[in-house]
């Protein structure tokens, strides 16, 4: 085992001492108390094992990210177990083929949902969104085309992102085929 830089170790201990409580508070919105403790321990160990390859300035960020990823993995695992527990063992699928197909479906479904979300944005907001993200125009250029300020362009983009996010969240909460009249009515 390689020798850990004592200064870096000290720095990480300081980061943990200072940010452990805020990290646990943030995680407690996702997991129960005992799981929060486990996730923080697991994330700390992960960072400690990779201490040599992590820059001191990014230690905190790396630690937060590790904790978030572990928490999300747990949440996904719980969801998958709930979803498939009733028919586990009844199907034997070719694992590789299944994974490829799943990835393909996910990619297409993701695009479908995002296209629907963007197409439901108010007209000017949608155009600003497309100018920036599809055409790659600068915000200044878009402002000149539309004869408005860059601040207004920022407002359109912010509004567009918030509406798209709400649409995605509602689509994910319903069946893939379901329409979302509430959002449609609000956006148009």
């Amino acid at each position: 085992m390689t020798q850990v830089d004592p200064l870096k170790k000290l720095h990480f201990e300081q980061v943990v001492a200072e940010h452990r409580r805020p990290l646990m508070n943030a995680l407690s919105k996702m997991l129960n108390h005992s799981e929060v403790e486990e996730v923080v321990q697991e994330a700390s160990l992960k960072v400690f094992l990779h201490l040599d390859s992590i820059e001191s300035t990014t230690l905190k960020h790396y630690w937060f990210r590790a904790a978030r990823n572990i928490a999300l993995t747990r949440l996904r695992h719980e969801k998958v177990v709930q979803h498939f527990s009733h028919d586990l063992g009844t199907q034997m699928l070719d694992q590789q083929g299944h994974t490829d197909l799943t990835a393909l479906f996910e990619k297409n479904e993701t695009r479908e949902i995002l296209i629907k979300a963007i197409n439901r944005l108010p007209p000017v907001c949608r155009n600003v969104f497309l100018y920036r993200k599809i055409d790659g125009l600068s915000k200044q250029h878009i402002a000149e085309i539309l004869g408005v300020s860059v601040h207004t362009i920022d407002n359109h983009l912010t509004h567009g992102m918030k509406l798209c996010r709400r649409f995605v969240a509602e689509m994910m909460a319903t069946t893939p085929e379901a329409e979302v009249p509430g959002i449609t009515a609000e956006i148009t």
Partner: protein
Amino acid sequence: MSLDGWLGIGLRSQVVDEAIEWVIRLDDSDLSDHDRWQFFIWLEQSPEHHWAYEEISEVWSKLHGLREVAHALHRSEVIAFPVEPSTTENTASVSLKGDPFSRWSWSAILLVVVGMVAAAIA
């Protein structure tokens, strides 16, 4: 491209909305020092802010991937707010091309001047 980043799983909606505002402000912009400080103060308030900012900025960046399906995105015909034309351009277009009365006026003035010069010579 996964949709997870859009959802901000386990994060408060208000925090995700604030992250969206910062991602858009920081995109293609020169922020003042004051605004940059405000951003870092917000970022350091909670690990939630770190997560939300990171995930929304990734989502924002990956939206470029929709260029492949640009044909499926509806563009609306937006009429730009009319900009007042410049004075010189306005004058030139009216006097030289637009109003026939103006052309006749200039011709009349020219004829008068020519007539006066001819009278003076005679």
